[in-house]
């Protein structure tokens, strides 16, 4: 494979990794507060539809992007009500959110199938975009990709430098001790859920506003589930999520390019690659058990104060 193919491949890697990166970062924040949210797929698709519809009706992609994030918050809030207010099982509630979100988006999205909405188009960043190779790979994308470069750093700073981040992590590791120390653990779990939902909604919007400018049923195509797996792969650390997301983006991009370059490997085998990798990642991370960084109280319910 020569350089002329490699550079577009890496550029495509960044692009197809971006929606997964947004969603993975969202799930990391949520899980660091001790809440498991398996509704990523459902939240993403509601975000994708909201973004698309707002962009189509107002013509303003930025408004659409934030509306998608807000829709993600709303969907995540449903999860929050179930698991924080009614102390429901987090796994069951998350699965229900996924099914609910997919159904909701398909129902309301049907009239919009086949229309094209205004969205974000690629533009080269000044100076950076002219760097040979690197410029083409990283700095000739749409603005949502550029935001996603800063997002892991911002979330890392939030989690590890600010007091609010410290309290959120404490809630995820030892809610009883955190409460004894005077931290409002339920409030911090709400914060984790809502912030996470915002990122997931934005990840969905990337698909309908930048990746394509089209809407369809099941637009997310399982990317939400890959994000859930990637949280484990990245050991709950935002900086490692970047590698995971681009690894998957790369696999998705490379299998299509292998076909285009005329390989004789059956396409069915190539299409299995992302999912084979998901399983490999899960095996790998459980094999390294003990140092994975999983929040100790992940998935537990906080009983109300007696």
């Amino acid at each position: 494979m020569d350089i002329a193919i490699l550079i577009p491949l890496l550029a495509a890697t960044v692009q197809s990794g971006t929606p997964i990166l947004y969603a993975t970062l969202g799930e990391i924040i949520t899980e660091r507060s001790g809440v498991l949210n398996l509704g990523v797929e459902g939240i993403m698709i509601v975000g994708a539809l909201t973004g698309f519809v707002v962009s189509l009706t107002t013509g303003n992609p930025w408004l659409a992007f934030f509306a998608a994030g807000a829709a993600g918050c709303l969907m995540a809030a449903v999860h929050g009500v179930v698991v924080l207010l009614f102390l429901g099982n987090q796994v069951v509630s998350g699965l229900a959110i996924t099914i609910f979100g997919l159904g909701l988006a398909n129902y309301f999205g049907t009239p919009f199938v086949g229309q094209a909405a205004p969205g974000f188009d690629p533009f080269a960043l000044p100076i950076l975009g002219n760097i040979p190779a690197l410029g083409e790979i990283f700095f000739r994308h749409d603005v949502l990709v550029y935001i996603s470069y800063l997002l892991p750093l911002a979330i890392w700073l939030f989690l590890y430098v600010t007091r609010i981040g410290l309290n959120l992590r404490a809630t995820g590791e030892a809610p009883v001790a955190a409460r004894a120390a005077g931290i409002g653990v339920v409030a911090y779990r709400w914060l984790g859920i809502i912030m996470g939902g915002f990122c997931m909604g934005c990840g969905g919007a990337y698909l309908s506003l930048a990746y394509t400018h089209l809407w369809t049923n099941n637009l997310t195509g399982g990317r939400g589930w890959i994000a859930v797996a990637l949280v484990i792969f990245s050991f709950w650390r935002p900086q490692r999520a970047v590698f995971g997301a681009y690894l998957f983006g790369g696999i998705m991009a490379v299998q299509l390019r292998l076909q285009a370059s005329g390989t004789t490997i059956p396409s069915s085998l190539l299409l299995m690659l992302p999912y084979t990798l998901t399983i490999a990642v899960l095996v790998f991370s459980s094999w390294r058990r003990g140092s994975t960084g999983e929040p100790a109280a992940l998935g537990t319910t906080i009983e109300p104060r007696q």
Partner: protein
Amino acid sequence: MRRVCTGIVAALAVCLFMGQAVAEDLQVGFVYVSPVGDAGWSYAHDQGRLAVEAMDGVSTSFVEAVAEGPDSERVILNMARKGYDVIFATSFGYMDPMLKVAGQFPDTVFMHCSGFKLADNMGNYFGRMYQARYLSGMVAGAMTESNTLGYVAAFPIPEVIRGINAFTLGVRAMNPEATVRVVWTKTWYDPATEKEAAKSLLDVGADVIAQHQDSAGPQEAAQERGVYSVGYNSDMSQFAPEAHLTAPIWNWGPFYVATVEKVRSGEWQAEATWPGLAEGIVDLAPIGDMVPQEVKDQVMAKMGAIKGGERVFVGPINDQDGVLKVAEGETMSDEELLGMTWFVEGVIGTTQ
């Protein structure tokens, strides 16, 4: 217990059917696999339905986005129970569910698209899309400069393979040096994947992108790179006005109107029909202004010849390894076309 239930259901249905029969309007139902707004497969069928709706004494309705399998059986059964006179099911996976329901409602006419099973009251139909694909290939072959064309394709089934082969034959009729590279997406409708597949073809040097997909994703990709594209299903030029050369398109209206007319006059018979360009069921979208007039003339002349009975798959045809598959002067039979699982010379890709 189940048999009793079926009996009761059938009896109820008969009652309903008799009740409806007094009404004057012939009721025609359509079942679609995707939303009608997709500018793709179901949209094309719905345009046909609108032509039926415009007929005197006929009313129509449709159910969209019906999943293949058990869901579709429920929808078809429900239509039959409500006393619909003719039911059109427009996806391959509706075949067995429809056959099952057809057995319970002998007085209803069932029509299944793209399958092969028949019953006394169930016929099947499809169109020779490969004829229009050959013509679109001629346009693409005349317009390529890199001699590499890209084809974003859904599933490696005979219908799609036949289309790729016809397209390639058309391309090489104009430009014997050109090759067609195929990427499988394993989905009928996924704009993100389709667009990415088109980009992967553009990255290996393709300068015309064709598709057997229902979304306009590949059209978008071609437009963004400033190269040409060939649509599918319906005129997709609205999504890529500068890229869109033409598109092989469906025109179901005349066929649906004729079928409903036959049912009304009692001439309808259960049979397998496979009309093409000559009957107007498939067509070519208007060819874009970027195409030179002499190319348009050549394509139109070929269209006239095919309408007059000329065949597309005429020997000599080699497969992609250069082995002679159809000898000089021979033509492929319909059975061979319906079961086509190999690529012709000039296609780069695998059918697996």
